[in-house]
């Protein structure tokens, strides 16, 4: 209902046509080879989704290879060594290159349409994320063609995976390739969190937000705390492989279990990071096909928030068989069972909505119900393996393989395919065909169960996972054969969908806007679509605006609402407040550029060259990448507008430039630094983990870094931090000289501080290859010093911006964001020094 908002009159048709031409020009998708410089979400989202699907098909072919190999006993089709690569890459690609990225991709593609926004706040960041994902993904997948793929399982357990001789270069490809892709995930999280909170249409209060937005918000938050521990783990892992620092080597004070902790602190929330955005698609689909609002909106929010938190208390249930005390296991067992509560709430909400409405059984709904059936089954076996005694029986058998596929295919793939059928009109202006859809569904549903149901029994009969073949006589033969047949039936379903998608994409576009008679804003789009999405941004006062006001599409098209024009030829979108969706800023968005792609190529290059131990080339590539990012920031962010405010339509004037906590950039910095902090605290966790397992830590005979140098470093770095708020205040008073002086002081102090910090372990002669203690101290010191160095880079950037007249009293986004960075850099320095100096003193070491 738009009753609360008066509808202004429509401008005359000539003016409207002119406005539209200007919008077309501002949002034009480049042609020819420049097409690849596009950064608009409609393009990047499509590339992202398409690439992730191609990786899915690739990993699916690997799965079929596995099933062919296991179809009969004593099969010699694949060698053991190649089989190891196949199953490792299957798991790795499905998880890291399909399940996680596709949901980011879908969100980037759909979120702006759901909010009737022109785009998300950082289009170039999305493009950078996509290119990072693409480069890293091709690198990781391509390795199998050179017989160099990772072959130690998708969770890379040491000591096998740290053994350079046994695991070869594949492990490095996994670690460095995926670390690079994790950066893309964090970039997507930043983009999506800020997008959900700040880019809603006017009037869309937090209680009116589409449920998809809630899920994306929670998942964005989870990514910030789940991915960084893995990045920290990767750093330790690569340091062991490349530099021989013994974090996971029990002979030299390390512990392989530390990797398991770090991996699963990431790995278990990741399951829910995959699951929640897929369930979010169902939360959009089910009300449409029940033709009524969702029953229990707040219960879905409960479920999303509840699962988001509880999923962080489950990680040790992957480690039940490692010999931890049963009291530890019991805590995680309890949490693993508790998480069933919010998970089930969502299922009941969907069932209630279906029962309360008039159900239309179209293809998306078919996949949705199939998803619920399969997922519920997987959830129940999940409760079984959450019980430690049962897990000890089932651990590392095909029972687990069956369980995880039920959860992931039921919880992620089926909802995703439902989403493909449902949202194909929004993504591609075309409708997939119902008949092939139904055939595909039944092939997939039956094929899936035929493939994976028997695996429970194969597992209970003792077949271990990851074996490349098995002898006759254990009663596994026919179960495996049935599974293999099922896998091919399932694959046939996928093939039909692929053919249908290609065939439909080549066909004529549709005209109908809202084919499912849905209630949410993404069905407001005109067809064929424009890259600027809706003609104007309508005010919203209902959870299902299209149901509340059937005339909304016409009124939006008649340019009656916000942002009807692009007078200055710039890309713009509205920024609104978090709680009530009051418009507060007209945000200028950056246009198409090759810079994000080039930055991804060179940063990616530095990771890839490191894999091959070309350290000099890697350094050069990294420096070029950073230089491109600086160039991108300099030319594309915190741009001073030609006027202070702008008329955005409906008689509203909004500022074009805001700074501090009002600006989206400040929030992006805050969110990025939260991720940075969780990586840092994962390293700190490493330190205390070693302390826990050692009687003497620091070990006897090793000199701790002392008090003098770390103390000096702490004083210098804290002082460097303290001058930054002062710099900001001086700038606010109009003293450019004061600002520059403080920035110079900061750069000097932090350079000295970083040097003092690095000299601490150097002076006492800590040798990182000897023992885990010196190694972890060195890692912490290097991490803190690197943060000081990054701080210096930012400080100098502000210094230069001030001289160039781009950072002034009125236009001060940069200094606000850099001061925010420094708060976190100071925490990093202080906690590092406290850990390496005060803790050993306090604990009598």
């Amino acid at each position, binding site marked *: *209902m738009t009753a*609360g908002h008066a509808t202004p009159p429509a401008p005359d048709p000539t003016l409207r046509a002119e406005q539209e031409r200007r919008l077309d020009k501002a949002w034009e998708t480049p042609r020819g080879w420049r097409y690849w410089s596009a950064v608009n979400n409609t393009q990047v989202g499509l590339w992202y989704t398409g690439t992730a699907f191609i990786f899915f098909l690739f990993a699916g072919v690997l799965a079929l290879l596995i099933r062919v190999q296991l179809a009969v006993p004593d099969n010699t089709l694949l060698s053991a060594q190649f089989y190891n690569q196949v199953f490792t890459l299957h798991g790795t690609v499905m998880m890291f290159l399909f399940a996680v990225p596709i949901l980011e991709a879908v969100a980037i593609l759909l979120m702006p349409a759901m909010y009737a926004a022109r785009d998300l706040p950082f289009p170039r960041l999305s493009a950078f994320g996509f290119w990072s994902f693409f480069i890293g993904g091709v690198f990781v997948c391509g390795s199998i063609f050179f017989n160099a793929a990772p072959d130690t399982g998708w969770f890379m357990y040491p000591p096998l995976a740290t053994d350079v001789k046994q695991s070869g270069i594949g492990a490095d490809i996994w670690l460095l390739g995926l670390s690079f892709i994790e950066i893309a995930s964090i970039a997507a999280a930043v983009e999506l969190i800020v997008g959900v909170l700040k880019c809603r249409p006017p*009037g869309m*209060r*937090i*209680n*009116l937000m589409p449920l998809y937005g809630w899920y994306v918000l929670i998942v964005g938050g989870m990514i910030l705390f789940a991915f960084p521990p893995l990045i920290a783990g990767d750093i330790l892992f690569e340091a062991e492989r490349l530099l021989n620092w013994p974090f996971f080597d029990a002979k030299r004070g390390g512990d392989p279990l530390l990797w398991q902790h770090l991996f699963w602190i990431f790995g278990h929330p990741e399951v829910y990071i995959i699951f929640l955005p897929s369930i979010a698609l169902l939360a959009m689909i089910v009300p449409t096909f029940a033709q009524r*609002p969702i029953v*229990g*909106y*707040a*219960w879905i*929010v*409960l479920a999303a*928030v*509840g699962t*988001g*938190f*509880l999923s*962080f*208390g489950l990680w*040790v249930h992957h480690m039940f068989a490692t010999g*931890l*005390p*049963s*009291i*530890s296991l*019991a*805590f*995680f*067992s*309890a*949490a693993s*069972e*508790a998480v069933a*509560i*919010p998970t089930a709430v969502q299922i009941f909400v969907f069932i209630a909505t279906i029962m309360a409405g008039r159900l239309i059984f179209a293809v998306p709904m078919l996949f949705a119900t199939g998803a619920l059936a399969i997922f519920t089954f997987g959830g129940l076996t999940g409760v079984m393996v959450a019980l430690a005694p049962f897990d000890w029986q089932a651990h590392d058998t095909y029972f687990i393989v069956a369980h995880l596929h039920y959860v992931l295919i039921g919880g992620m793939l089926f909802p995703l395919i439902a989403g493909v059928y449902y949202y194909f009109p929004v993504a591609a202006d075309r409708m997939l065909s119902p008949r092939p859809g139904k055939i595909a569904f039944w092939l997939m549903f039956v094929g899936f169960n035929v493939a994976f149901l028997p695996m429970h029994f194969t597992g209970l009969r003792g077949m271990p996972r990851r074996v490349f073949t098995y002898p006759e006589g254990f009663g596994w033969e026919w179960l495996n054969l049935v599974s293999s047949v099922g896998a091919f039936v399932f694959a046939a379903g996928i093939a039909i969908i692929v053919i249908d998608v290609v065939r439909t994409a080549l066909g004529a576009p549709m005209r109908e806007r809202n084919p499912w008679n849905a209630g949410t804003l993404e069905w407001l789009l005109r067809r064929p679509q424009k890259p600027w999405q809706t003609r104007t941004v309508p005010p919203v*006062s*209902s*959870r299902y605006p299209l149901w509340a006001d059937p005339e909304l599409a016409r009124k939006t098209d008649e340019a009656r609402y916000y942002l009807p024009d692009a007078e200055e030829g710039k890309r713009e979108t509205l920024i609104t407040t*978090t*709680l*009530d969706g009051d418009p507060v800023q007209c945000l200028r968005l950056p246009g198409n550029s090759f810079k994000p792609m080039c930055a991804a190529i060179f940063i990616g290059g530095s990771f890839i060259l490191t894999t091959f131990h070309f350290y000099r080339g890697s350094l050069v590539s990294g420096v070029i990448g950073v230089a491109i990012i600086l160039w991108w920031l300099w030319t594309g962010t915190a741009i001073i507008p030609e006027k202070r405010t702008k008329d955005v339509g409906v008689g509203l004037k909004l500022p074009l430039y805001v700074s501090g906590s009002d600006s989206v950039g400040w929030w992006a910095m805050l969110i990025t630094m939260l991720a940075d902090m969780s990586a840092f605290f994962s390293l700190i966790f490493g330190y205390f983990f070693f302390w*826990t*397992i050692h009687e003497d830590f620091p070990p006897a005979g090793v000199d701790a870094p002392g008090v003098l140098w770390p103390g000096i470093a702490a004083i210098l770095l804290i002082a460097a931090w303290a001058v930054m708020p002062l710099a900001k205040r001086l700038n606010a008073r109009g003293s450019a000289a004061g600002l520059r002086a403080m920035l110079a002081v900061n750069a000097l102090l932090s350079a000295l501080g970083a040097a003092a910090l690095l000299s601490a372990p150097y002076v006492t002669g800590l040798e990182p290859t000897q023992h885990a203690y010196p190694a972890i101290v060195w890692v912490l010191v290097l991490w803190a010093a690197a943060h000081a160095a990054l701080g210096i880079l930012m400080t100098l950037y502000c210094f230069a911006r001030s001289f160039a007249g781009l950072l002034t009293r009125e236009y001060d986004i940069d200094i606000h964001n850099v001061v925010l960075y420094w708060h976190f850099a100071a925490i990093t320095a202080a906690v590092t020094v406290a850990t390496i100096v005060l803790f050993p003193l306090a604990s009598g070491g």
Partner: protein
Amino acid sequence: MVFAFRREPDLWFLIGSPTVWALHFLACYVLAAVHCEKAGAGFVSIAPVRVWIVGLTAVALAFVFVSGLQAWRHWGFGANQPPHDADSPEDRRRFIGYAALLISALSFVAIAFTALPVLFITDCR
């Protein structure tokens, strides 16, 4: 979150009580793990850990209970029923209150769940 007795709840209110769950969970795990590692594994009693965990659980449950009361107040003590989908600041507040109340209830149950093992397990085996 828990202590901010404000009229207008914001999004932080939704994550107050699950944050208490997370801290409680972490504390239980760390206390037990460090005790069993340092005091020697096997038949070593976890009596001191049990006392600590029972105390922490009481504190955590009290926090969550208070934040639930707070949420109940924001909801309007149940005077209005969901779905709270009106375009008004009152309904926005009721919605956040209601959702926070549900989340507090889940956190309460989850905290109790986490603490249960110390009633049954007595040593570090």
